């Protein structure tokens, strides 16, 4: 049996190269197909991963803690005490890499020239630096040196809109704990710049000290953002924190920003469909090409049968030929895909579509990322479907009646 198999394999291989042009054409189609599958998958994966990174970096973190009513009504009433014993103990766990507390309130900022509504965020400079984008986004001036820093940091676009600049003063107006209006002046000590202009006009930062003075609060926080050791760690840490602090609203990034997760799921679904479509496009060519080679070699197959080759080995011969084709296409396709992704470097620059990307919550450079699962999916689909579709022509070849085959001109 193995003798026959090795005979057939060497026949299949040689027959593949009998008509180089034909084999070349169908291989090209197949390599193109594999390439299309892997490259689109890596692009979508890049978008999804990018969106996830951005979400986590832009203040969200892996897990956030709020008072139960806060997310619906983000006002100062709905804050919680951040010096609670139980809370602090549960945060001092090794699975949490860093955490930072914030006091967020709606406020109004005015320069000499104009007035806008913003969200004012009081931060603890040291812990915030470990958590979010702010430190690295400073464009002019300085980040807060420590908690006693009296300045305010605003976004570049907001500074432009207010027609003000570094060093000038602005007035912040907000509602304090007693429901009274509080307003104070602050000097702009830092300006930050992020790709998302929406953020720049929405958020202004001051130290915890400053905001507590403004709002006459002590130890109150609107939210605590947490970074865990890894993304996989999140569910475990989440349940632990929830169990320890049942009165607080504790959620992870995927429920806080369901859009990100949603996009990822949509992409995965889309991938399946796209892979199937690409394969179908290829399959017509594969089947047709195999049928044509069989047609050409009808006489030969008749001869094989006359010489005593069992029908299933005729099927095997054609099938193995298809398997060789699939193997070559997969190897080349994977290689070309990998090279393509490598050549894109950090990713493609879509800053020409900046505002559009911002709307879709994506940044301006989309990386191509090949992930093992995606690679496996594409290859497996091609192998499985390839084996299935080539079975049909192979089966047809084995059904030839020898006499008819031999006498056919």
């Amino acid at each position: 049996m193995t003798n026959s198999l090795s005979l057939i394999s060497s026949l299949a291989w040689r027959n593949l190269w009998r008509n180089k042009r034909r084999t070349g054409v169908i291989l090209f189609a197949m390599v193109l197909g594999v390439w299309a599958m892997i490259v689109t998958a890596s692009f979508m994966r890049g978008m999804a991963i990018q969106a996830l990174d951005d979400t986590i970096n832009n203040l969200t973190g892996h897990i956030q803690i709020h008072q139960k009513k806060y997310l619906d009504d983000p006002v100062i009433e709905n804050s919680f005490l951040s010096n609670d014993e139980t809370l602090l103990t549960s945060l001092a766990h090794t699975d949490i890499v860093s955490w930072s507390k914030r006091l967020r309130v709606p406020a109004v900022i005015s320069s000499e020239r104009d007035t806008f509504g913003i969200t004012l965020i009081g931060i603890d400079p040291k812990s915030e630096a470990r958590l979010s984008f702010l430190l690295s986004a400073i464009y002019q001036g300085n980040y807060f040196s420590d908690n006693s820093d009296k300045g305010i940091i605003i976004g570049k676009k907001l500074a432009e809109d207010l027609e003000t600049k570094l060093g000038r003063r602005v007035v912040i107006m907000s509602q304090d704990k007693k429901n009274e209006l509080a307003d104070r002046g602050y000097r702009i000590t830092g300006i930050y710049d992020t790709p998302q202009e929406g953020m720049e006009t929405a958020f202004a930062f001051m130290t915890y000290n400053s905001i507590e003075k403004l709002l006459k609060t002590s130890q109150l926080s609107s939210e605590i953002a947490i970074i865990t050791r890894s993304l996989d760690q999140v569910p475990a840490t989440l349940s632990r924190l929830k169990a320890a602090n049942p009165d607080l609203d504790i959620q992870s990034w995927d429920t806080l920003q369901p859009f990100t997760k949603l996009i990822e799921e949509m992409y995965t679904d889309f991938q399946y469909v796209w892979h199937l479509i690409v394969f179908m496009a290829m399959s017509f060519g594969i089947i047709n090409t195999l049928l044509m080679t069989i047609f050409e070699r009808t006489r030969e197959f008749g001869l094989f049968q006359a010489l005593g080759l069992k029908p299933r080995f005729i099927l095997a011969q054609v099938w193995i030929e298809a398997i060789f084709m699939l193997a070559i296409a997969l190897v080349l396709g994977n290689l070309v895909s990998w090279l393509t992704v490598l050549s894109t470097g950090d990713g493609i620059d879509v800053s020409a579509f900046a505002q559009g990307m911002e709307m879709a919550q994506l940044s301006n450079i989309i990386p191509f990322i090949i992930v093992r699962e995606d690679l496996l999916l594409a290859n497996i689909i091609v192998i499985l479907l390839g084996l299935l579709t080539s079975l049909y022509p192979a089966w047809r070849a084995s059904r030839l009646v020898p006499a008819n085959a031999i006498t056919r001109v």
Partner: protein
Amino acid sequence: MSTNWRFAWRNIWRHPRRTILTMLAIAFGAALLVFSIGFQLGQYDLMIKGSVSIYEGLIQIQKKGYLDEPKVRSSINNIQLLAKKLRNKTSIDSITARANGFALISSEKRSYGTLITGVEPAYEKLVSIIPGTINEGQYLSSDSAREMVIGESLARNLQIKIGDELTLMGNGRDGSIAATIMPVTGIYKSGSKELDRNLVQIPIQTFQEIFSMGSHGHAIVFYHDNVKNDFAFKQQLNQLITDRKDLVTLSWDELQPGIKQMIELDYSSGWLMYLVLVAIITFSILNTFLMSVLERTREFGIMLALGYKPFNIGKLVLLEAFLLTIFALILGTLIGLAINLYFYHNGLTFEGMEEVASMYNMPSTLYPQISFESILIGPLVIFIFTIISAIYPAMKIRKLQPVEAMRKI
């Protein structure tokens, strides 16, 4: 000539299975493209319409520079007069004047920074859907009433109900403090969380009084159902304000560039994928065309010996490819069209659509666009690719020598 057509037709059906497979490949591609492009374009239509009709309008006339730096002082004088003149000259009523500002709104319990707009209630109804989404109380009654309309989320956050009074505080046009107290007479639910949380509407003359605007406003907003005609409308409006060099007309894509960019990005990446798919299908069927020429070498040799010119044989082969392709394209297009028609009447929804749709101001049911563009452009591209690929085998015929050809078996 007609004999050639008949000859070509019969030649195609010499190998029915092969021809059917080839046709299926083309039809598959055509149906897929028709379906996909139809839905893409339909989605864009919905996105544009949604964004335009909710609040921003199709076209706005603003003071030059206002779009980038929306300052209170960047205003248009005699704005209501101008809006009236435009309505008269164009005989279109869905043109309205607005004045925009920013203020702190306070209820007994809460304060928020919000956008305030002064509107012409009678015409605002024709331009934006917001007046029609009042679900508690009523919309504004006149240009100068002391009434306020706010979004549902804002009402909830302020913890007020119809009839309650709110304090309004902001900066007037002349730099003075603008402050007043007014009752909430209507609550709307627009479907956009952004607007519901941030937008407060009051009558335009009331606004002008509070903010010391005189007869000034900030934008004239134009809306028309025929969204595709935006360029023509823009020209029309431009003509009518040639005397006002300080004003500019802006269409929706300038007002909300993000949307247009997203559409462009989506459409181009869609086409990238379509082209890859079409290339795969083309290469898949290239072999069929090649084979059908090569296996008839002997036959062509005889034809040459009988006096046919190589050019004519080439024409015959192209004719075969043409017939096969056209037939398959018609089939595929009809199938795609049928599917689109079905969804045109019934709409398409799938899981997860709701959240995504609300982000882009779209309804959660998708409808395909049925137009010449959406139906024909896909098949046209396939046709071009296929015919080009048929040229290669046709060219091979030109090099045939009769005797050599006939010797081949």
